[in-house]
């Protein structure tokens, strides 16, 4: 029983990471009908840049977080400029899918060359000894992940609701053309959503790094599973992706323990297939009223 609870705690922490990445998908898809197939790589870069800052550079972990965030902003804007904006202009869906994939591959390869192909250990900023919560162990770092992820999403929600710029972003999501009529520069909004999306992924990266092995390959499958969570969560529901993320995270930790670690990625992927088979586009996409 104790083990199960422990698995649940780890699962929730993992799930929150999925939720944060999924949140990033929602941000860009809402405003531009596109998303970053290299979102997992954004997380990976955040983790590795953070590692360099903390390990090699000797920077304080807490200071490194905003730096990594800033890096994420720039990386996201770059992806938008190079990969997405030209494709939107060409009205080519195939274009942005392939170019965000290409950028993801490039980032991963660059990371391999800079940081090597092996997985590295990220020194934990918090005490590594577990705390007892309701009789089972939970790592302080896991609690930090859960707290940090929730805080990040709440901050963005606040931004969206309270500031005029945030409202401009929501307006763009509601009706891009009408938003332009209001004087809102929707291209800038889209660039900003990508920047924000990568920032949240990078932030998730530096949060999750101490809990797991950090390396160039850590992002790939994460991005895919987070997509499933994004679909369950739906377009406007932050709560939906938190719930979906937690469900997935717990399913994974339990599968990994009770069945085999090799199979631990399977529930997420099967979930993705199931969700799309049962509730395609309708959850994530805007109302599919076809205009002929």
């Amino acid at each position, binding site marked *: 029983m104790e083990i199960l609870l422990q698995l649940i705690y780890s699962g929730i922490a993992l799930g929150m990471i999925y939720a944060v990445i999924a949140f990033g998908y929602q941000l860009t898809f809402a405003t531009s009908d596109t998303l970053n197939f290299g979102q997992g790589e954004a997380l990976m870069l955040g983790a590795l840049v953070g590692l360099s800052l903390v390990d090699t550079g000797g920077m304080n972990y807490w200071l490194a977080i905003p730096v990594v965030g800033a890096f994420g902003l720039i990386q996201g804007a770059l992806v938008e400029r190079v990969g997405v904006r030209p494709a939107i202009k060409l009205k080519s869906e195939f274009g942005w899918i392939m170019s965000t994939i290409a950028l993801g591959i490039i980032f991963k390869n660059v990371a391999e060359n800079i940081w090597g192909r092996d997985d590295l250990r990220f020194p934990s900023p918090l005490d590594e000894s577990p705390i007892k919560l309701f009789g089972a162990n939970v790592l302080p770092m896991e609690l930090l992940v859960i707290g940090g992820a929730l805080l990040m999403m709440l901050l963005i929600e606040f931004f969206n609701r309270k500031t005029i710029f945030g409202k401009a972003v929501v307006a763009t999501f509601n009706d891009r*053309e*009408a938003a332009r009529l209001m*004087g809102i520069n*929707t291209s800038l909004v889209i660039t900003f959503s990508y920047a924000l999306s990568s920032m949240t992924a990078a932030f998730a990266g530096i949060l999750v790094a101490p809990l797991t092995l950090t390396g160039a390959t850590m992002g790939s499958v994460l991005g895919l599973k987070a997509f499933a969570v994004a679909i369950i969560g739906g377009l406007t529901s932050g709560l939906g992706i938190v719930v979906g993320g937690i469900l997935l995270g717990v399913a994974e930790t339990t599968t990994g323990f009770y069945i085999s670690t090799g199979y631990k990625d399977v529930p997420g992927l099967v979930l993705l297939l199931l969700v799309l088979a049962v509730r395609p586009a309708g959850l994530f996409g805007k109302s599919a009223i076809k205009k002929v």
Partner: protein
Amino acid sequence: MLKIDQLEAGYGKVHVLHSISLHVPKGQVVTLIGSNGAGKTTTMRAISGMIKPTAGEITLNGRSIHGLESNQIAKLGIAHSPEGRRVFASMSVTDNLLLGAFPRLTGARPRGDVNADLEKAMELFPRLKERRQQLAGTLSGGEQQMLAMARAVMLNPDVILLDEPSMGLAPILVEEVFKIIARLKQEGMTMLLVEQFAAAALNVADYGYVLENGRISVHGPAHQLKTDPAVAASYLGGASSH
């Protein structure tokens, strides 16, 4: 104030507007009427930058706005209340109105007193006042039309483009909408009004242009057009009697 000169525009292969010219003097209400498919909305979209004209000139106070993006045109002082309302459904009435003032709040236009203007808008559109925090998507068609118009007013614009404000509204609401248009006119607002319902439009306008198959077929002072049989003919094809 707003001048259109030999404008040509269309969508891809479809050439809709053929050499349109019209003039909206300051402080006046000019209406563009015509049956469906005549090109009225296309004209509006060309003015506010939603589509790019293929030929011709559009100037605001002498300054060419040809080829600019919609958001730039809005910042220059042209507010567009689009066909179909297109309010921001997931946001409240107040937020929609604040977004109408976006260029003012971000420094692209003189700020003035946005909050005071917000209250003024509520006075002008009492239905909105009762529903400040309601989500725009849950408003009725008539209320959404009010919101779209109020949102345009919030820009403190030089010109308002009103695109088919009566569309899809029950006659009683159409009356209300046109009363508000008349009030805005009283306040000195310059407006270009595109309408399918010629009668109501000509009642409130100073000057009118009739668009038929992408060309201006008739134009003149509104009260003259009201009794011109050519106008009815352009709608119902042939004589509409009695």
